[in-house]
């Protein structure tokens, strides 16, 4: 028998969807095949984490819910482009950060100025959030968007710089610089 006959075609085929015992991989594969239940499972497993980070970004419950919805809808649309190169939750966070940054920019364009926007944000915090450190949350809201995103992902959500670099598609050094700046600005704001 020739050498080629011994080769298993499945081993030489390029399998873009990895065969893995990880149930998440199976859910994703099943979802791609049209399984609503599989995507529901993905949603259930990740919604709290996504909602949490969206709330940290916005300090607004309703807005966080809206963003969370958008994150999952976008994730569905882009599911075919998920390459299993990172954790699925990391990929979702990446979408969340971008949704947030997009939202912020749109909002800033709509609103006349940053002060008005911040005032509205502060009002939202006052109305919706009694159990959090309001001063701190206010100070975080005043941070520049990128710095705020890095601070939340690093100091609140516990991501490492290399993960943040992946999520935000920036260099690790840039992530470190953002964090350094964010902490400094936060401290100065809290001192006022």
């Amino acid at each position, binding site marked *: 028998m020739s050498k080629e006959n011994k080769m298993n075609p499945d081993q030489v085929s390029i399998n*873009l969807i990895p065969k893995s015992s990880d149930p998440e991989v199976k859910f994703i594969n099943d979802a791609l095949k049209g399984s*609503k239940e599989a995507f529901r499972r993905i949603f259930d497993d990740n919604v709290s984490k996504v909602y949490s980070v969206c709330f940290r970004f916005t300090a607004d419950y309703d807005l966080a819910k809206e963003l969370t919805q958008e994150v999952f809808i976008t994730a569905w649309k882009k599911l075919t482009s998920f390459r299993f190169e990172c954790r699925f939750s990391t990929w979702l966070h990446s979408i969340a950060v971008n949704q947030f940054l997009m939202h912020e920019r749109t909002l800033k364009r709509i609103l006349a100025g940053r002060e008005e926007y911040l005032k509205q944000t502060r009002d939202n915090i006052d109305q919706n959030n009694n159990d959090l450190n309001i001063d701190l949350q206010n100070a975080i809201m005043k941070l520049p968007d990128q710095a705020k995103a890095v601070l939340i992902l690093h*100091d609140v959500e516990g991501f490492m710089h290399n993960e943040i670099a992946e999520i935000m598609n920036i260099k690790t050094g840039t992530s470190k610089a953002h964090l350094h700046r964010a902490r400094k600005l936060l401290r100065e704001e809290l001192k006022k």
Partner: protein
Amino acid sequence: MTEEINKENICGEIELLIDEQIEGMISLSDKQKMEIHVADCPGCKEYLKNTLETINSIDKLNSKNLSLQKNDQEKMWESISDKINFSEHSDKVNSQNEKSANSYSIFRKKYAWISGIAAAIAVVFIIYAVKNWDFSQGKDSLSYSFGLPTYWKVVSVKGSPKINDMNIVSSDSVKEGQWITTDSVSIAELIIADIGKVTIEPDSKVILVKGADSTQQIFVEYGMVNTENKSGDNRSFKVGIPSAVAENKGGSYSLKIDKNGDGMIVVKSGKVDVLSANKNAIVPAGNIVMTKNGLGVGTPFNEQSSPGFKNALFNFDFGNCNDACMNVIIKNAKMTDAVSLLNILNGGKAVTETKEEIYNKVVTLIPPRAPVHKDSLEFFDEKELEIWIDDIQQKIETDLKGSLEKLEADLLKYKDDIQKFYFDSAKFYFFPENFDFTETPGVPHTPETYENNYYYKYSDDSVKFNSEEMKREMEELKKEIKESNKYNKEELDREMEQLNKELQELNKELKENIYFNNEEFKKEMEKVKEDIQRSVKEYKSNQNYKFKEGDSNEDSDEGSKDTENSGVPEAPDPPEDPPDNK
């Protein structure tokens, strides 16, 4: 002042080290350096204290306390699921399965007709059906029915290609798991149903495999294949290679894989998607993409791209691409490189800042139909990207067409000029001065007719104008004329010398004849002088000057040397005493 600046710089550095320390990612030496500095620096000590306090404060915002209420979660899911089409991603597979189902249903219908035979009503109809049934088409239709055990038709084009260890005689069929190999002279052709074909060139090895999406694929282990998709609709077929899969979406491309599994895909027409674990590449016609075993697909580049650009892309894809390298890619990109830039934009390797730069660059080359906000660059819609790439291809094609038309026009112009040059040369050397080229009846006097006119007189009509021969003839003629000129000059010199001698003799004669009438002599001399000057002038203005023998006796001429020096022959002394009247 300098000390203060130095201190600031050091403190800035130490602050970063403090961040690293908090992160837990500091090296031992940096840690020692930081601790020594902090111990003596109140500013940095303050920074460390404040940073830790800030982090502790933020810890209070621990996200674990935040969770969505169960009913909120349920509502959210309902809202999301309403907005999602769950069959969106499986549509393609489903549509393929539908085709399979249709094939199957046709098959069943056939059996229904057979049962009609049993009813003995449709015997004639069956005969008709059997007569007209295109079996080859039926087989091909089945062969792209995804998910069914299928056989693909393979044809031996040249030499002795093999399926596993067996020679393909003329045509055969190959199924999943079987190898097709060609030696140094063999060529085989694999028929992909009615979609297209894959030509397996010499020294190649391919196998039919089941792809990741359960569809059948060809996998090229090494060698070269040419693929062609002639379906004309949206059907495509995939060819697997080490680390990537190429999907021919209509058109043709060549694919070469070396023994290491590294490859190159050259797209001749249409568009090819090359998918790999790290990224996808959209490769339109006129573009080339490299693949590296274990690393996946690179960024496509145009055949016209500069070597510097290609080199930088290679480093970007498979090596280290520093800022200078990125600079080469972005700053040096031309219109033909726009597809490369868009592919980088679509991939995940470039960082956001770079993607923004790339986007801005491509927009200057050719803007997208709808502007893309930079926040959306991370989630570029592939369909929009393909439309953009199509626009780029269209523009390149239009530009190329324009350039070719201009080149063609220039060539025509040059052709006319060249013909005119040869004609003018021929006219000058071959034709009599009074030859009238417009005299040929019914032939207008245009550059196009020069050639005809020329051969009308001097050549057989059937002989084609031969520019090389013409050139040779010209050269020979020039040489002849040159030699002829030389001869004329020598002859003239000789004659001039003779004339000079005669003139000197005349001078001597005059000197001797003192009784010569002075007035008459002067007139005679003036005449001679004028003749000589006129002759010299004519000689100078016309190289073909012919000395007139008849004149030599009465009109004296002189060598150019003497004439130029004195203008006239030396005048004789006037007679001192006129002789007595004779």
